[in-house]
Every structure is written in structure tokens, then in C-alpha cells.
């Protein structure tokens, strides 16, 4: 699709009587190579298009409230940000502040930004806000103190905002204008200024390590940006500190951050083999003929493997999707000395001569994940186009051109960007492989119940603690199937509930004879009315479906509520395109529909007599003080 066609379709949608154009949001990637001012135009035109006209029933756009504030005039970022968000499936409601409103917006509880109640607050910073206009090049120690003071002021404003808001906040490191660098005449002085400036950026990075605050390392992102960071005319005339090109970069990074906040990062990387993981065609060139050593072009493909391995170590699931003979591929993974990836780095392999779209569908099915969680990387334009056409929700990385650029192409888009990673992420491949082992084990038993008894399942339900809280919040956000809402609690919301006596947040851990699954679920409870506890959300990883674990968890929740004197348990369920498995738990556990309103169902279960929900094959274990 050409740029003009995309613009035309946007213009058409602006008419009040226009029919919806559900493919348009995904088609916005076709604007990627357009000049930045064209993108800004598209973004401005899209401001008037209602989100309903852009969404499809299969892949609804995620609503998100995003505020933009800055130390300079941030207004021109708005259209680029809107476009960048729609492009990745987020329908933003944007609030953009005027010139230098950042401190006021963050510190005043009655500011317009605070009233907007943003899910995400983007803070745009520039060097001129930190540097005094008349700084003395003869007193760099004094400059250092001044910069530290400015950072303190910013830190206090951020802390104030975090204390009042449960949204996420994004800061960034700030590049120093080369004019300041050259204002010093000595090499030693310039180096010292550089060090002082990096201390400031180090401080900004630190601010993004706690609460709901995060820091984008913009200085690093801009290293390969072609062009100046600021246009002196726009800066002097209108206090705009970034060129449109930098605004575009920032909008992309900020949109990726928003996707991470929503827990919508991709989870699976499906890799082609020939001319992707190595140079050459294994079936034709043989084991000795493929190149992946230390010389070009083999070293480029080896680097792709290195990046894929790094992704796996951070929790991304790797799969193979290749047209090849499975025995030959197995031999290569087993014997080739230069392969960095081995068979057990992959959770599943589709090596056959079938269609790749079908193979991807099956891979996603095996892993019990949606196709929107899958990134497909292939050097063949044919395969990429086939997948784009047949599976529009799969994210395609076309490894075209010189293989030296493959690693960058794989990573540039930030498909896998999450807010934080933890121990569970490192173990994820092993967890999924153990799951495949359980499936084989299941085949050896006559009945499912025999199998479940032999699994020797142990379930621990306990209050969330400092250690488990980030992982629980992440699990809540990334769970699509067994969840009660499409608006899971953010980390900050979970943290608030964890300390509030009117709420209780529980984690669910599972172990069996094959090993420890670790944290697999959680329950967010509102016990503001001590007589009727309300389950705000209940999430469970798809890894542990169909084992009665959800019943065991509800058994424990009912016990806790009863012990605290409650006479009933209620649960809220808000259906989405994919959470049918979650909603099914309430009728199955004996809950009945008490009310339906605003697209949500309220289920209720009396606690007298005490409900017996614990399956015979599960041992409910107690650890820690659950009454806390």
C-alpha cells in the first residue's frame, strides 16, 4: 500500500458517515518509510477518527490514557505519538500540556494532568532545563551542584506524582547539546563536563528504578539517529527542543513503553533456518556447507543466533519454523560446532514442507498462546508476505538485504520489550519444555484423574510480598485467557492493594513431580465490606490449565473469607475476545449470576455451608501468614 492510499483511507474515515476500516490500524506500518512530516499529518488526521472505526472484533484496539508533559513545548509530539500507538494496536486518549508544565503537572494534585488520571505519563526533558543559561565554564564543580539540585527538584516532583497516581511514568536520559560541549576550550574541561552530564543522566536512570517510574535511555537510542537533536530555529523561536526526526524516534520508543505497560509484548519468536540462522541451504549445501562461523557472512547469522539466545534468556520462547528435512535439522543442531542455539533452546519446532502460516498456527496452539504473541522472522519475501496476508496479527520481521543488518532488524521494533524481567523469565523455556514432558506422561495413563493423582500437585496460596509483587503484576498483565478483565491491575495498583487493609492480593504457586512451576497465578480481593469479599480479578497462567488448580485456589479464598467472618464471596467477570476459560470457572465452582451491568457479570457464592472445592488430587499447602 502506498503512502497516499493510507492517507486517503484516513481522510475517508474522518467523514461522520464513513464505514469502519478495520484493517487500517495494522496497515499504518506502510507509512514507516514516509517522511516525518507526512507521518505528522497522518497522526493529526487520525485525531478525529473514533477508535471503533479502526478496530476489528478479533484484535480490538487497547484503550490507554496517555499524558505528555515536558520542560519544553511538547505539542508536536502528539500526532506522531498517536500514529505510533495506533500502529501497534493501542487507541490512546491523549492529554498534552503546554510549554514547561512538567513540574506543575507532576507536583500539583489539582493540575490538569492529575485530573486527566493518565495510565501513562510521558515526561519530555531537555538540557536547557537542567543547565543554567549563564553557567560558568571556570566553575564546573559549581555546575555539578546545580545539576544535582535540578535533579532533586525533578525527583521530588516524580515522587509526588507516584504517590498520588497508580499510572506509569516515563523519564529519559537527556543528550547534551554539542554547543555546550564546545563552549569549553580545553579537552580536559570538555571531558569533565561530559562526566558531570553523565552523572545527571545516571541519576535520571536511577529515578526509573522504582515505583511506577521508568527511564528510557534516549541518549543511547539517538546514537544512530541521522541528524541533529534540535533545530536551533525551532528552539529559539518556539522552545521546541527536538527536531521532528527525534520526535519520531521518541514516539516509537514511548509507544513501545505503553505496549509494555499494557503487558502486550510478544512472547514467541518463530525463526526460519536457511539464510536466517545460517548462510546457505542445509538441504543443498550439507552440514559442512552452511556458513555461521567468524567470517562474513557467517558471522552475521551467528550474531542473529546470539541475539535470539539473549532473548531466550530473558523469557522469550524460541521456536523453529522451517521448510527442511527434520532429520537433517536435528543432525545440524546436534553436531554443527558453530551453532550457538541447540535443540533444547527451542520450545517447539515445525520442521516440515508444509505452509508456514499453518505451522505458525499450530505452534501457537501447542504453546496455548495467541497469534498476536508471535514474531515471525524469515529472509524469504514470499514467506513473509504469506504470513502477513494469512495471519495479520502475527508480527513479521523480514530479514531482507545484507545479513549484516539482520540483528538490528530483529530488535529495532522492540516487539519483546517488557517493563522488567525476573527469575521466572529466565526459566520460561525450561517450564514450557517440562510442560511438553507432562503431556507425554499424560498419554501413558488411562484416565485424566489417574494422571492428576500421579502428578502429585502441590498448590500454595499466600499474600503477595515484595519479591513476588513485580512478577505477579507482570503475570496479570500478560495473561489473556484465564483472567476476568482486559484491564488487569498495574504494578502500582497491585502495590497499593497489597498494603491496603481493605484489599488482599494473593499469589498462587504450583509444584508437581516434574518440578516447580513457580508463580502461576494471583487473586485480587476487595474486602472493604467484611461480610462479602469480592474477587476483582483472578488470573492463572495457561501453563497450568485443566488440573483443578483454579478450584483449589477458590477453596482457599473461601476458607480465608469464612475465617474472617464473611458470609459470601463475589466475583466480577468482564468478557473479552479471549477470556472465556477464565469466565468458566465461576459456574464450575458453584457461583451463580447475581447481577449484570456495564458489560460485567457479578457472580456470588454463599459461604454457608462451607463450599468444598478442593480436588482430591491437590495438596493445598500453607506458607507464610495468610491473615496478614
Amino acid at each position: 500500500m502506498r503512502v497516499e492510499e493510507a492517507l486517503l483511507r484516513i481522510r475517508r474515515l474522518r467523514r461522520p458517515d464513513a464505514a469502519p476500516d478495520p484493517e487500517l490500524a495494522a496497515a499504518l506500518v506502510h507509512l514507516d518509510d514516509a517522511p516525518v512530516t507526512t507521518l505528522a499529518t497522518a497522526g493529526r488526521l487520525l485525531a478525529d477518527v473514533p477508535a471503533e472505526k479502526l478496530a476489528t472484533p478479533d484484535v480490538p484496539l487497547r484503550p490507554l490514557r496517555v499524558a505528555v508533559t515536558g520542560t519544553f513545548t511538547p505539542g508536536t509530539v502528539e500526532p506522531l505519538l498517536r500514529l505510533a500507538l495506533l500502529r501497534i494496536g493501542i487507541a490512546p486518549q491523549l492529554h498534552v500540556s503546554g510549554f514547561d508544565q512538567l513540574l506543575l503537572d507532576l507536583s500539583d494534585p489539582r493540575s490538569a494532568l492529575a485530573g486527566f488520571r493518565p495510565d501513562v505519563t510521558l515526561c519530555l526533558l531537555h538540557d536547557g532545563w537542567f543547565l543554567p543559561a549563564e553557567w560558568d565554564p571556570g566553575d564546573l564543580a559549581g555546575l555539578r551542584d546545580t545539576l544535582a539540585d535540578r535533579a532533586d527538584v525533578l525527583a521530588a516532583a516524580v515522587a509526588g506524582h507516584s504517590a498520588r497516581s497508580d499510572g506509569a511514568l516515563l523519564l529519559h536520559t537527556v543528550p547534551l547539546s554539542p554547543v555546550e560541549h564546545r563552549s569549553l576550550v580545553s579537552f580536559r574541561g570538555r571531558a569533565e563536563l561530559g562526566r558531570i552530564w553523565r552523572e545527571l543522566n545516571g541519576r535520571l536512570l536511577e529515578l526509573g528504578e522504582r515505583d511506577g517510574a521508568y527511564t528510557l535511555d534516549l541518549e543511547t537510542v539517538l546514537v544512530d539517529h541521522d541528524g541533529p537533536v534540535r533545530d536551533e530555529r525551532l528552539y529559539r523561536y518556539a522552545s521546541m527542543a527536538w527536531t521532528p526526526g527525534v520526535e519520531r524516534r521518541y514516539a516509537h520508543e514511548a509507544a513501545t513503553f505503553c505496549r509494555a505497560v499494557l503487558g502486550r509484548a510478544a512472547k514467541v519468536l518463530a525463526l526460519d533456518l536457511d539464510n536466517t540462522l545460517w548462510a546457505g541451504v542445509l538441504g543443498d549445501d550439507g552440514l559442512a556447507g552452511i556458513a555461521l562461523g567468524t567470517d562474513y557472512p557467517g558471522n552475521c547469522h551467528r550474531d542473529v543466533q546470539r541475539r535470539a539466545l539473549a532473548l531466550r534468556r530473558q523469557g522469550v520462547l524460541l521456536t523453529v519454523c522451517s521448510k527442511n528435512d527434520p532429520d537433517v535439522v536435528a543432525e545440524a543442531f546436534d553436531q554443527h560446532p558453530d551453532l550457538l542455539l541447540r535443540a533444547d533452546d527451542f520450545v517447539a519446532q515445525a520442521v516440515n514442507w508444509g505452509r508456514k502460516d499453518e505451522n505458525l498456527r499450530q505452534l501457537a496452539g501447542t504453546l496455548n498462546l495467541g497469534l498476536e504473541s508471535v514474531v515471525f522472522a524469515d529472509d524469504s519475501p514470499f514467506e513473509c508476505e504469506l504470513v502477513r496476508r494469512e495471519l495479520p496479527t502475527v508480527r513479521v520481521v523480514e530479514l531482507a538485504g545484507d545479513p549484516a543488518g539482520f540483528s538490528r532488524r530483529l530488535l529495532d521494533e522492540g516487539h519483546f520489550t517488557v517493563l522488567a524481567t525476573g527469575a521466572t523469565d529466565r526459566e520460561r523455556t525450561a517450564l514450557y519444555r517440562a510442560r511438553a514432558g507432562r503431556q507425554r506422561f499424560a498419554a501413558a495413563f488411562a484416565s485424566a484423574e489417574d494422571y492428576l493423582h500421579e502428578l502429585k500437585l502441590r498448590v500454595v496460596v499466600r499474600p503477595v510480598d515484595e519479591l513476588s509483587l513485580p512478577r505477579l503484576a507482570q503475570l496479570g498483565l500478560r495473561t489473556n485467557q484465564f483472567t476476568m478483565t482486559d484491564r488487569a491491575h498495574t504494578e502500582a495498583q497491585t502495590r497499593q492493594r497489597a498494603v491496603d487493609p481493605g484489599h488482599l492480593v494473593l499469589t498462587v504457586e504450583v509444584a508437581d513431580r516434574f518440578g516447580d512451576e513457580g508463580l502461576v497465578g494471583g487473586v485480587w480481593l476487595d474486602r472493604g465490606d467484611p461480610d462479602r469479599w469480592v474477587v476483582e480479578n483472578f488470573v492463572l497462567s495457561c501453563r497450568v490449565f485443566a488440573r483443578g488448580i483454579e478450584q483449589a485456589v477458590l477453596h482457599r479464598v473461601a476458607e480465608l473469607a469464612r475465617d474472617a467472618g464473611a458470609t459470601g464471596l463475589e466475583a466480577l467477570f468482564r468478557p473479552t475476545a479471549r477470556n472465556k476459560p477464565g469466565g468458566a470457572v465461576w459456574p464450575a465452582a458453584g457461583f451463580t449470576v447475581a447481577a449484570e451491568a456495564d458489560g460485567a457479570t457479578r457472580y456470588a457464592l454463599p459461604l454457608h455451608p462451607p463450599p468444598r472445592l478442593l480436588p482430591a488430587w491437590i495438596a493445598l499447602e500453607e506458607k507464610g501468614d495468610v491473615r496478614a
Partner: protein
Amino acid sequence: MVAGVLEVDPAEVTDESGPETIPTWTSLRHLQLVVTLEEVYGLSFAFEEIRDVRSVGALRDVLRAKGTVPA
């Protein structure tokens, strides 16, 4: 192109159009218009030249003076 930056119907834009006739032609949009013209025509303005331009016709004159013939 002017219509695209100002978010109006291209049919509404004439040589006489300016900040007085098109409400969306704010000072911020004026700058975005300048940046867009620079990118499309591959040239660079001094802001002195462009700051006080008050209509599409005047924009056209500035571009012509720079040696480009706007469509």
C-alpha cells in the same frame, strides 16, 4: 499539503487563506507548516523570512523567491 497540516478540507484552502480565515492555523501549526515545506521542497528557511507570512499566497511567494515552483 497546507490542508494536511491544518487538518482542513483541501477545497477550503485558497491563496487568500491565512491564520485569520482558518482557525486551526495557530502559531504552532505555522511552524509545522514551515518544517513540512522544508522537508517536501528540500530547502531551509531563515525564520525571519517566514515568521510574518500571513497567507497561502505569501507562502507561495517565499517559495518562489527560493527558486522552487510550488504546485
